[in-house]
């Protein structure tokens, strides 16, 4: 009988954490992700220190910055000591602060959506996985429908409905409503893969003897779902979340690119890229910054997702 080590008991997450801490790439990507989070939180502070804000039309208000056509006069998109990343063509807003505030938009939508997705996906996936039968068939049907439905089209079609049906003419569409709609729609489609994955996981977990063991000691269904099954799905849920989050950031930007994302004047990367696409022959710099920022952000997140998965994968350690 091998003796159990005398050190602290190590839960599966503690084990994963230790594995993760040894992963230099993982730490680096986590660093980048955290940096983005910090930048998002500190955006107003940075803006104050830097002396610019994301909404003022500097280029229009100060002569000599933009040409009559609205293009930055200085080369490289108007980059200067004053405007580090240059100016937005047309309105002449500051690119750096727009980018900074853009992180907030992306992160807010993505994080809120992912939380909803996790909740809905876990509840539905685990429950259906455990119940099977009619619930399972209904679930599979709904999933099939949602999978085959072109999400992007739906979002495109939905935005005017909301703007005209739910907002009174005398007021701006409140920012929270824009965010809520986006988040809801992302969540409405985003839970499907997670729930389907969890359903499969739980179905195989259900066959594991420990579920029988719990039933054998007289545990209720609730106990089995909440205490026996749920703790076993956190790892795949965590992995799913870290991998799905950059997908939402990307999708949000894609929507703005197609013209139905978060609207002016809330800074948004996708809209910046769309504007960049419009002027990219004249001012490629303007597309470069949001394009590269979002790329770095998503790469870091995907990398983090990979590393979290590796760390949680029982096969790579134990």
């Amino acid at each position: 009988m091998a003796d159990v080590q005398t050190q602290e008991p190590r839960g599966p997450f503690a084990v994963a954490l230790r594995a993760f801490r040894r992963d230099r790439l993982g730490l680096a990507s986590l660093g980048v992700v955290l940096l983005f989070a910090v930048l998002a939180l500190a955006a107003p502070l940075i803006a104050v220190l830097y002396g610019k804000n994301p909404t003022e039309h500097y280029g229009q208000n100060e002569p000599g910055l933009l040409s009559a056509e609205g293009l930055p006069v200085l080369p490289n998109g108007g980059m200067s000591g004053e405007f580090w990343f240059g100016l937005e063509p047309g309105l002449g807003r500051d690119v750096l602060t727009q980018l900074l505030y853009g992180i907030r938009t992306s992160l807010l939508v993505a994080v809120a959506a992912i939380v909803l997705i996790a909740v809905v996906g876990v509840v539905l996936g685990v429950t259906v996985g455990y119940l099977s039968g009619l619930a399972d068939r209904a679930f599979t049907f709904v999933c099939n429908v949602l999978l085959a439905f072109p999400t992007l089209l739906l979002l495109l079609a939905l935005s005017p409905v909301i703007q005209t049906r739910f907002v009174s003419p005398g007021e701006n569409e409140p920012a929270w409503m824009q965010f809520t709609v986006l988040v809801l729609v992302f969540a409405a489609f985003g839970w499907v893969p997670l729930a389907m994955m969890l359903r499969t996981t739980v179905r195989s977990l259900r066959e594991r003897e420990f579920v029988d063991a719990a039933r054998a000691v007289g545990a209720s269904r609730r106990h089995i779902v909440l205490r026996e099954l749920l703790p076993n799905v956190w790892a795949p849920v965590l992995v799913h979340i870290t991998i799905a989050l950059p997908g939402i950031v990307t999708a949000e930007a894609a929507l703005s690119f197609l013209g139905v994302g978060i609207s002016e004047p809330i800074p948004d990367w996708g809209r910046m890229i769309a504007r960049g696409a419009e002027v990219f022959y004249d001012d490629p710099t303007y597309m470069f910054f949001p394009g590269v920022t979002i790329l770095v952000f998503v790469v870091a997140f995907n990398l983090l997702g990979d590393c979290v998965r590796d760390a949680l994968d029982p096969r790579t350690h134990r």
Partner: protein
Amino acid sequence: MTAHEKTGAPVLSVRDLTVSFTGPRGTVTAAEGVSFDLARGEVLGLVGESGSGKSTVGLAAMGLHDPARTTIRGTVEVGGTDVVGAGEARLKELRGGRIAMVFQDALASLSPFHAVGAQLAEAYRLHHKDAGRGEARARAVEMLERVGIAAARARDYPHQFSGGMRQRVMIAMALINHPDVLIADEPTTALDARVQRQVLDLLGELQREYGTAVVLVTHDVDMVAAATDRMLVMRHGRTVEQGSTHQLLTAATHPYTRALIGAAPSLETVPGTRLPTVDAPEPTARTNARVWGAVDEGKRTTLAEVSDLRVEFGGGRTLLGRRRPGTQAVRGVSLRVAEGETLGLVGESGSGKSTTARVLAGLQKPTGGTVRFDGRDITRAAEETALRRALSREVQLVFQDPYASLNPRRTVEEIVTTPLRVHTDLSRQERRDRAAELLEQVGLSTGHLPRYPHEFSGGQRQRIGIARALAPRPRLIIADEPVSALDVSVQAQVLNLLMDLRDDLGLSLLFVSHDLAVVRHLCDRVAVMHHGGIVETGSRDEVFDNPQEPYTKELLAARL
């Protein structure tokens, strides 16, 4: 099997073999300084508990370790070529041609995507370059028939075969090119006694016919005794002892060897005695046989009883609403367990033992028949939560796989206190105290409470499972093959524990197993199951010493 000829230079010569794996969690040395020679026609038994490095040595001889993650030192010579340093081209010729292997898990080792005949034919063609497809197919079919598989089944896929048949396909594939050396890695685990016997006989026959030298990897001492000339005992990657089989079996010098040999009960051991383990090779307490059968059968109070139990699985309906035929897992079983009695349920795989046990535990809904516990009708326990809850106070299960039956994401404390939460209104602290007490009872310590299952060894895990079963102070414990996933030495520990608890707490026990020796060692009464029905019931001695039914006789005869 005994070799007819053991002369000339060794066909396999292993010298100072050290194998270590590098992984993300550092380096594991799985074999260290292993040396042995194998002469033509000789059979070497490679014995040792799980994880002792047996398969590692076998794979090293084949040169099949992943070079990126494995460091191999020493030499492994096959017919004059050192496998350790050889290039891929040379290895391709050796593998399957001069040295072949029957891998441990036959189901996983056959490609699920190709028909078995094709897999065999491919093996033949790889070493007979000028053989045509037709010839290879003919050889494959021939070889399949040789191992007792009808030619017509050559087109079938592995999943359509039973475990024993798959194992035979593996053997046919390994021998199709008449290799000099065959490494048979636990070729009979997961097979029931009868099939085990058939497979071993076949292997011996072929080995004699082709003069193949065999390394027989196993942790089953009985099998070594029956089939090998020499044996090599491994532990923690090192050689413990090496010598002729006869000599080691009768007069092993190393205590570990002795413990290993003694740990498995045989049909000759005295029932109910404490078994030797690696930690306690010379057991002291309770050396006498359990005497239980003295009281008259009829006078005992019946605790649990099933009568005319029927269980049918599956079926369901087709698209058009037609019923599909289901599996008749249990067809009219009647059984009873008396207060304080240990009933053994034996039978080959798939005979319906587990299903019966699960019905009794309220986990499986029967299709027919009645189930009673302590006089109460509990037939509907699987559907009625309240009934099952009431039942689970008194009947508890110990499962076969100690790892699968413990939730990996819950601590030992949570696992052991779950029944207490369900059945008592003890406070958190009281539950913890009781859990600590239970752990002590099964030979673990309070310090283990906050740990997770993966931090324990197999034997310890099974003890946790037993502690959980004991928690609500049940009157009947159903143990469904609680030791078949364990090593012999660990098996001995768990059996000892069960016997101790039975004596201390006066538990009744339904003990399900396919291992006749274990059942004989532990049980007072035995029921033999076959094809979903009970063929014979009787006291231990009646059944083992004087079996009535042909099936029981066959089963006993199959023991090695």
